[in-house]
């Protein structure tokens, strides 16, 4: 039953991806500038420019261009970057894991801290933890991320000098052998502890920057869902059984509070998939965000398309994962 549901959801991804690709393709055409000019370079003669335009198929009507793109895509070919002349698939294989690693670290911080703080705030309602968190969450949601990034860089890299200011690895560290492309994991698998620690230290500031808003959001939802759960009859039953307050909170109230929390966590992942551009640039991260930024400025349509499709696919899978998680969190939820 569940298998069929998943199969249907996977099948439904096809029209979504198709729609997104059409939209992205047409929107790319609206970017000011001439992709042929961007590819040929500033010094190209009009003849050279036309030759490039013809070679890249940019002289064709837009629907034809799109048709050609999709035709190649169905054969697994994401095309070639206009600016770097590298295969887009190849470049994505380098940039996507970097973003994935940052996203992963961010989500670990968001989930662990958000839920912990939310539970603590709810169980000590009106106490100092609760009030401190309230203040923090206003700051967390209200403060612009670029400002937060600079602040953290200033304090931890500039003044305290305890964390690296930017990049994924120190200059003297050799990247671990590529397995997943996630430096910390690859280093761990290769048993290179020093490399792993170095990669981990580089993750702290960008992940912290990206997670502050999420921690506030997840914490607030967890707090209110916990407060709601703690008023339910089953909590009184749990207390009547003589369970410790800790068991009442963590075993009886928290699992019931996780449904809205999971929804917010899923939305947070979706937001981050598109929201890392600024932070990757500030921290010289060299991930999907940096790649997208360059692609857009160079009118590199295959790059823009590739990133859009990869991000959308990731988003669709996160969504499916959240929906499947609901059934684990609440046995009353079943999909047909």
């Amino acid at each position, binding site marked *: 039953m569940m298998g069929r549901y998943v199969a249907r959801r996977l099948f439904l991804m096809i029209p979504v991806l198709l729609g997104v690709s059409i939209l992205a393709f047409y929107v790319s055409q609206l970017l000011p500038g001439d992709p042929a000019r961007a590819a040929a370079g500033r010094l190209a003669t009009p003849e050279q420019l036309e030759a490039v335009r013809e070679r890249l198929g940019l002289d064709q009507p837009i629907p034809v261009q799109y048709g050609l793109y999709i035709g190649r895509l169905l054969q697994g070919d994401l095309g070639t970057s206009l600016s770097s002349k590298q295969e887009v698939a190849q470049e994505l294989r380098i940039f996507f894991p970097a973003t994935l690693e940052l996203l992963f670290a961010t989500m670990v911080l968001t989930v662990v801290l958000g839920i912990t703080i939310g539970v603590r705030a709810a169980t000590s309602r009106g106490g100092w933890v609760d009030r401190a968190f309230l203040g923090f969450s206003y700051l967390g949601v209200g403060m612009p991320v670029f400002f937060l990034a600079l602040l953290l860089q200033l304090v931890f890299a500039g003044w305290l000098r305890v964390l690296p200011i930017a990049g994924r690895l120190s200059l003297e560290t050799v990247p671990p052998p590529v397995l997943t492309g996630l430096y910390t994991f690859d280093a761990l698998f290769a048993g290179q502890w020093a490399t792993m620690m170095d990669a981990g230290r580089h993750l702290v500031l960008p992940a912290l920057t990206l997670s502050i808003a999420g921690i506030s959001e997840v914490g607030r939802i967890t707090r209110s869902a916990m407060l709601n759960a703690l008023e339910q009859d089953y909590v009184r039953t749990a207390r009547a059984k003589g369970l410790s307050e800790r068991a009442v909170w963590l075993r009886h109230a928290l699992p019931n509070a996780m449904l809205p929390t999971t929804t917010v966590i899923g939305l947070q992942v979706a937001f981050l998939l598109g929201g890392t551009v600024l932070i990757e640039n500030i921290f010289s991260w060299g991930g999907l965000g940096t790649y997208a930024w360059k692609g857009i400025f160079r009118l590199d349509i295959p790059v823009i398309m590739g990133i859009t499709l990869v991000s959308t696919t990731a988003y669709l899978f996160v969504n499916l994962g959240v929906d499947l998680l609901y059934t684990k969190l609440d046995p*009353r939820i079943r999909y047909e």
Partner: protein
Amino acid sequence: MHAVNGVDFDVARGESLAIVGESGSGKTVAAMALVGLVPSPPARIRGERAVLNGLNLLALDERKLSEIRGSRIGFVFQDPLSALNPVLTIGRQISEVIERHLNIKGGEAKRRAVDWLVRVGIADSQGVADSFPHQLSGGMRQRAMIAMGLAGEPELLIADEPTTALDVTVQAQIVDLMLQLRDDLGMALVWISHDLGVVAGLADRVAVMYAGRIVESGSVQDLYGRPAHPYTRGLISSVPDLRTERLSRLATIPGGTPDPMALPPGCAYFPRCGISERECDARVPVMARISSSHWIACTPAANGIVAAEGQGDE
């Protein structure tokens, strides 16, 4: 505000005490306050003693009380669909009582949970143990709830309207089951209910509550045979009698229960009472003994009975 006032009752092993009252009369709060289940703050409990086998519950701190809840005092709540945790299996919810109080862990605790389900009359006990509350029928859920209340092997079981959400036939089954278990396990049973009809069949003694106070208490024979408090009389005459063939209008008590925030200075039943005297509005009536096992908190009725008996003696 005083939700509950000067409530005094006792119950022995193997005995059933029923606490009867309308919703809002304080019957649940009185029972919950004994074991620290009324959130405090906002509630404050100022009682003298609540003694369980020589142990004063009101003198215990929360940690000690939590050791008693579920082990020496078990609970069965009304509406098991909301009183059971929707995301934990029945087996888990029972076995955690065993793990907490009997110091039995893991597989053995699970096995005992299934045993308890057998004892409350569930045939497919393993299947029910692996189920979630929403997958069971109302009667099944209440049986599971009873198994949970009993799993800590309590001396006293407090059942708060355990049959209210159930069909009449299932109600009867649950009443029989609980009396059977009371006798088998030799525990004391406190049954909180608004339903005088259900209570008549199961209680040894009955305490009637009105606006946070006990107004009458006595044996079942006392209460149903010779109800003395005007409120109890009103309640009993408003129970529909299926044996009369003639259709008659159901008797009711005029008025409604008083707002606990604004109780009258004297007897809370005064505004609705048919036999009140001027004095009733000024002073709260004290419990008066009208026979060896029968007490009422009504000055005119108590005086009347004593006077009538005095005449009989002459």
